[in-house]
């Protein structure tokens, strides 16, 4: 039971983290109609920036703030130099162009930080466990992740649904020519949105940095998960991304910890133990295939946002 509650919290934390990545992807896709494979690179950059800046300033929070600012700037620069030219092109062009960017960023990181990984320590004031229920201890850092990501999700909701810039974002998603014709500086808006997505990816990266090692290619696996989430949720829908991210977070975490046991009980020791590792990493993709077969536009098609 203790393990179950702990794994549920882990699932929640992982799901919320994935939401940060998926939100940026789905914003960029919904508004600019751009498939951005390089999103994972921004996540990686966020982690590297945080590791460097935290070591440099000696403070985790200061390092985190600088890292977010850094990925924001990198995102906006990338948008102005490269992405801007890809809008309105074929999706194939997006995939290829941003695939090129992945190669570039991976190599750039190797050039700047070297091939070895980096590590970022959990800040000392979060490096303990908190008793959340009688008898259940949970690391304070992971609780902090849940709080921060929930706050960011709330911030995104308010930003998109309750502010003028959010109104422009939603308007841009439904009819960009019209918004441009009404005198809105659509180019600047796009650059800002891309920067926002990049900053969210950077935040996700720096949050993960103390849990995983910071290494080249760390964005490539999680990018696919984020894509799976945007597709399950319905591309362009933030609400869909939120629901799907939690779904994927729970299924992946709980699947990895309890599914093998379930399989052993169902199929017997021998067959269960053989099939379990492969099947539990495939669960997410099976979920996605199932969702797309039933609802080819995802759970929350963007039209009904």
């Amino acid at each position, binding site marked *: 039971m203790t393990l179950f509650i702990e794994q549920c919290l882990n699932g929640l934390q992982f799901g919320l983290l994935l939401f940060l990545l998926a939100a940026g992807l789905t914003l960029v896709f919904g508004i600019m109609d751009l498939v951005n494979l390089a999103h994972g690179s921004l996540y990686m950059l966020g982690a590297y920036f945080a590791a460097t800046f935290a070591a440099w300033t000696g403070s985790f929070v200061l390092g985190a703030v600088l890292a977010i600012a850094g990925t924001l700037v990198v995102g906006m620069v990338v948008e102005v130099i490269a992405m801007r030219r890809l809008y309105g092109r074929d999706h194939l062009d997006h995939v290829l162009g941003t695939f090129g*960017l992945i190669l570039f960023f991976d190599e750039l990181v190797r050039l700047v930080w070297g091939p070895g990984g980096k590590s970022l320590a959990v800040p000392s004031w979060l490096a303990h466990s908190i008793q959340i229920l009688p008898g259940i201890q949970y690391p304070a850092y992971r609780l902090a992740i849940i709080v921060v990501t929930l706050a960011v999700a709330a911030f995104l909701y308010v930003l998109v649904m309750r502010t003028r810039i959010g109104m422009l974002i939603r308007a841009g998603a439904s009819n960009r020519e019209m918004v441009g014709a009404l005198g809105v500086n659509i180019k600047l808006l796009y650059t800002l949105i891309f920067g926002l997505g990049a900053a969210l990816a950077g935040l996700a990266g720096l949050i993960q940095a103390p849990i995983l090692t910071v290494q080249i290619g760390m964005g490539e696996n999680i990018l696919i998960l984020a894509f799976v989430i945007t597709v399950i949720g319905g591309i362009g829908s933030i609400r869909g991304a939120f629901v799907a991210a939690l779904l994927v977070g729970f299924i992946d975490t709980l699947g990895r910890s309890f599914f093998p046991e379930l399989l052993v009980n169902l199929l017997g020791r021998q067959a269960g133990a053989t099939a379990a590792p492969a099947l539990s990493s495939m669960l997410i993709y099976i979920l996605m295939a199932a969702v797309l077969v039933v609802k080819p536009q995802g759970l929350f098609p963007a039209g009904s946002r």
Partner: protein
Amino acid sequence: MRPSINLRSLVIAALVLGLTLLPVYVALSGDRFMLTLFTRIVIMAMAAVSLNLILGYAGMMSFGHAAYLGIGGYTTAILCFEGVTSGFVQWPAALATSALFALIVGALSLRTRGVYFIMITLAFAQMAYYMASGAARYGGDDGLSLDTRSQFAGLVKLNDKATFYYVCLILLFGSIALIWRLTNSRFGMVLQGVRSNEARMRAIGFPTFRYKLAAFVIAGTMCGLAGALIANHTDFVSPSMMFWTRSGDLIVMVVLGGMGTLFGPVFGALALLFLEQFLPAVISTAVRPFDAADAAKAGEYWQIVLGPLLLVIVLFARGGIDGLLSSLSNLVQRGKQGNG
């Protein structure tokens, strides 16, 4: 207007001739490495040719094509591991498993379109990747070595490098011939019609789903054969050959060479693998005058050049290498007419 000999067809003829005569050059120069490199190029070209059928001709943006390389390769390797070394069993089995996988993936994914199609094909390829990583009996993440290459009852000996190269080359030319026949048939015309306007094709009465599925299965099967070849070439298979970036490489080859052209994917495979092989040396040479000490190290970072290069190609050279050749030969043609 009679079909004139233009630059493009000359280059293609030179390519075919060059590929055919390569082992002669190797025998004369003793440069065995070139044979290994070109065997790889020929196999990857075959995979790219198969992807081109669905991506270039039918406009289906599959982002999971490397899965078939892996499935063909793993089928061969697993049979070898279990003691079945006959190529007469291994290769048909590789074709059958990849065809079956393509049939399942195609039947499910072709219900979606656009980005959803890109992502669902990617998801299936990731499933295959994780299946291979989880297969502890067959090496899991570490991959599986082949003890011997496929045996053809002593008729063809794949251990001989030149023989193996010619087997791959004949299969590549066979695949290109098949694609040529297909795309010029009624079936191929329907596929190309689907690429330009699927709704219209359906409206005039073609069951487009069936045509697309058939093309998807043909492409997957052809790529499965390339997988069996690559397993024989490297004597090794591992899950990483199915990772999504490998599928990205295949797309790069097709687009770099020229989508929907017969020989484009071959040019693309040649160009990408050449860049991979020789760009490091080029960078080192370019850096040497400025910083002699770090010149050798600079070559390691060749992808920092390749990445932006891809972006530039996407932005400014849509037709790929084949398109470039066509426009060059048109230019030459026009120049001649101007003089005459």
